[in-house]
């Protein structure tokens, strides 16, 4: 009995000691683990602000003198916005006045802005020159030189590669996307093709629409939401370089004859000094300075030139072409 008592007294003491050691170890380990667990990631402090502490929004103070430069949405804001803003900045530096870029929702809006004096100058489609609003209140100032073609550009009929379309005639009963009612390559050119065959878009195509930007038309064709579209070749090349995968899903069915490239126009009532300053500033973009080169690169231009007699003659021919189309009733649906 005495031996058992001794053992009974010894065993729990040893066991208790072991349990105590385990608890002690756990206790020592706990703060470390808890510290690890408490790392919540709230590293950066919060700055106190108040939504109740308000003040009126300061009124926009228009600059004393600014040149407002409009641009027809030949390229969408997403595709052409960067080049357009670069152009505005470069001109601003050369004119020493702010140049405000204004992108139209469609081609006619810029014409209207020019006509009503809301912009001093604008980059418009050649087709916009058919609009009396523009021809009466505005005039061609300069002509951007396009890469490889100078003051000439072309229209393209582009279809989806998977659609199986090979020639323009295949577009019968297919959906077709125009660019803008004042677009030369995106509207007048395909209408002329239909007109030659005595057809009207409403009866030839299954459905038609206006994208108001060449790059949007190309995206629609590449994405399959339109079977074909009429676009500017210069835009197509820019778009093809930017989105080769999308471009690979398109096929060019037809290329137009030479068209005079889109001009830079100014209001006729613009003071001569301002007109001249703007002209010089635009021409200076091709002088080789870095910001000028960046603008030309972004816009797909190689330079800017005076509108020579040949260019103006071709513009005049184009006007007659519009008139013919109109007279033949080809501009009606």
């Amino acid at each position: 009995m005495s031996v058992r008592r001794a053992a009974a007294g010894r065993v729990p003491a040893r066991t208790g000691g072991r349990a105590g050691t385990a608890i002690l170890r756990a206790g020592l380990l706990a703060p470390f683990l808890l510290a690890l667990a408490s790392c919540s990631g709230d590293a950066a402090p919060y700055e106190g602000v108040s939504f109740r502490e308000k003040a009126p929004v300061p009124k926009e103070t228009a600059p004393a003198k600014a040149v407002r430069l409009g641009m027809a949405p030949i390229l969408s804001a997403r595709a052409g916005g960067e080049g357009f803003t670069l152009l505005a900045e470069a001109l601003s530096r050369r004119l020493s006045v702010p140049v405000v870029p204004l992108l139209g929702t469609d081609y006619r809006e810029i014409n209207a802005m020019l006509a009503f004096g809301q912009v001093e100058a604008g980059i418009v489609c050649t087709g916009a020159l058919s609009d009396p609003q523009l021809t009466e209140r505005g005039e061609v100032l300069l002509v951007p030189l396009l890469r490889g073609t100078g003051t000439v550009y072309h229209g393209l009929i582009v279809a989806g590669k998977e659609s199986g379309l090979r020639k323009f005639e295949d577009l019968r009963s297919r959906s077709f996307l125009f660019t803008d009612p004042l677009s030369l390559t995106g509207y007048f050119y395909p209408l002329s093709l239909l007109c030659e065959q005595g057809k009207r878009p409403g009866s030839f195509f299954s459905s038609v629409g206006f994208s108001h930007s060449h790059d949007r038309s190309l995206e629609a064709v590449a994405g399959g939401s339109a079977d074909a579209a009429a676009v500017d070749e210069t835009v197509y090349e820019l778009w093809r370089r930017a989105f080769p995968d999308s471009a690979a899903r398109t096929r060019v069915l037809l290329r137009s004859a030479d068209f005079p490239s889109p001009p830079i126009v100014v209001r006729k009532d613009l003071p001569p000094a301002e007109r001249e300053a703007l002209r010089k500033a635009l021409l200076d973009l091709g002088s080789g300075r870095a910001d000028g080169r960046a603008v030309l690169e972004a816009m797909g231009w190689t330079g800017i030139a005076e509108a020579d007699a040949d260019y103006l003659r071709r513009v005049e021919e184009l006007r007659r072409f519009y008139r013919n189309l109109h007279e033949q009733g080809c501009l009606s649906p």
Partner: protein
Amino acid sequence: MNRAAFPLRTRILLLLLLGVVLFGTINVGLFRSLMLRGLRASLEAQGQALADLMAEEGIPYLLRRDFGGLSALGDALRQRHPEVLYVVFYDPQGAVEAGTFSTDLPVFLQRPSPGGPAPRRYRDGSLSFLDFSGQVLGGRLGSVRVGLSEAPYRKRVALGQWVLLSMVFLFFIAGSAGAAFIAQDVHRDALVLTQAVEAFRLDGPVPPLPVGRRDEIGAVARAVAEMMERLRKLHREHLGLLERFREVDRMASVGLVASGLAHDINNPLSGLLVSLERLARDPGNREKAQAYLPTMMEAARHIREVLQNLLAYVRRQRYAEEPVSLAEAFGKARLLVEPRLQPGVLLETDIPEDLPPVRFDPSCLLQVLLNLLLNAADAMESKSGRITAEARREGDRVRLVLTDEGEGMDEELLARAFEPFLTTKPPGKGTGLGLPTSLRMMKDHGGDLLLRSRPGEGTTATLLFRTWEA
């Protein structure tokens, strides 16, 4: 009852509680941390994506100076994403162009984002939000700020944390129930095991043990049961050995007392023979016969008494406890031992006749007394002195103290005095079984035997007997 100082049930529950609290806390903390990080990264990615989206979608409106369109754009975003607190557009010079406020704008939104690490973190009371900034066309067209409330994601974190805490609590409840069940199961059979070990008697059956269990408790129970069986077997062997020791000791003591007895018997027997020879030579002498006969009868009775004692002692028998008179038993032992006492050794007794009878086997008691008296006689073989025997009643016990004035024992010898076969006597005079056998018999009869001795001063043997009534 042998109770556990730190019961298994308590230990398991404590360890479970510790484990659940410790690891539950760590898990909840880690989960919260990871979830916060993950959701914050997601929120930051979402917020920056929304700011970039606004910067992208705002381009046409800014290029057209369509501030109404810009406001509508921000409102549309807020409708689609309720966690968006504000969308504000700024021109390249930092002036506000448009936003999701009417006329008044919070002061901290009057200017574009001040820069620094993105997103910036703001707090307005309990509302915390992140401020993201997007550059429109690389800043050439201005910038946009989008504020994203953290409330939805904090709500998700809180919900996740609550769910996890609930799981921890449920785990604790379920774990406690399971642990309590296991602990109780183990505790119950551990108790059975403890009680069985405590109740175990060498001369009884093996108590019920949980030997049918298939776990460690069962293994321990089976080992204990086997150990008990072995102990019982050893005990039986031990008892047999003791019995043999007792027989050996009895026979040895018979041999030891034989010479004394021979002398004791020889004297009356010689007197008897002489008387008989004289009577034989003169068979008709009636007077002589009457004169010799009482002496002859006394001598014969003496011889018969001595031999009866010897026979009673030598007769082999099992324990048969009886009420025995200690004075009478001592008298018989004295009769057998006295012949061995050296001249000059005086045996004095003070054992009252009226002592209560003790509970003992008479033969065994005689053997015990004989062993101790023989030891005392041997201890005083070479010196004169006294051997005293005193008995007194002490409650339900009777104490007999037997003291000699012999050689005595040193401490080392005294400590080993009850070891079998240990003897200081010359060969032929002792077996070394007297004391251990006597001790065993005293304990078997509920008594005890204690020795006290000092070298040269003699030895005192104290015997404790149970009275018959006790």
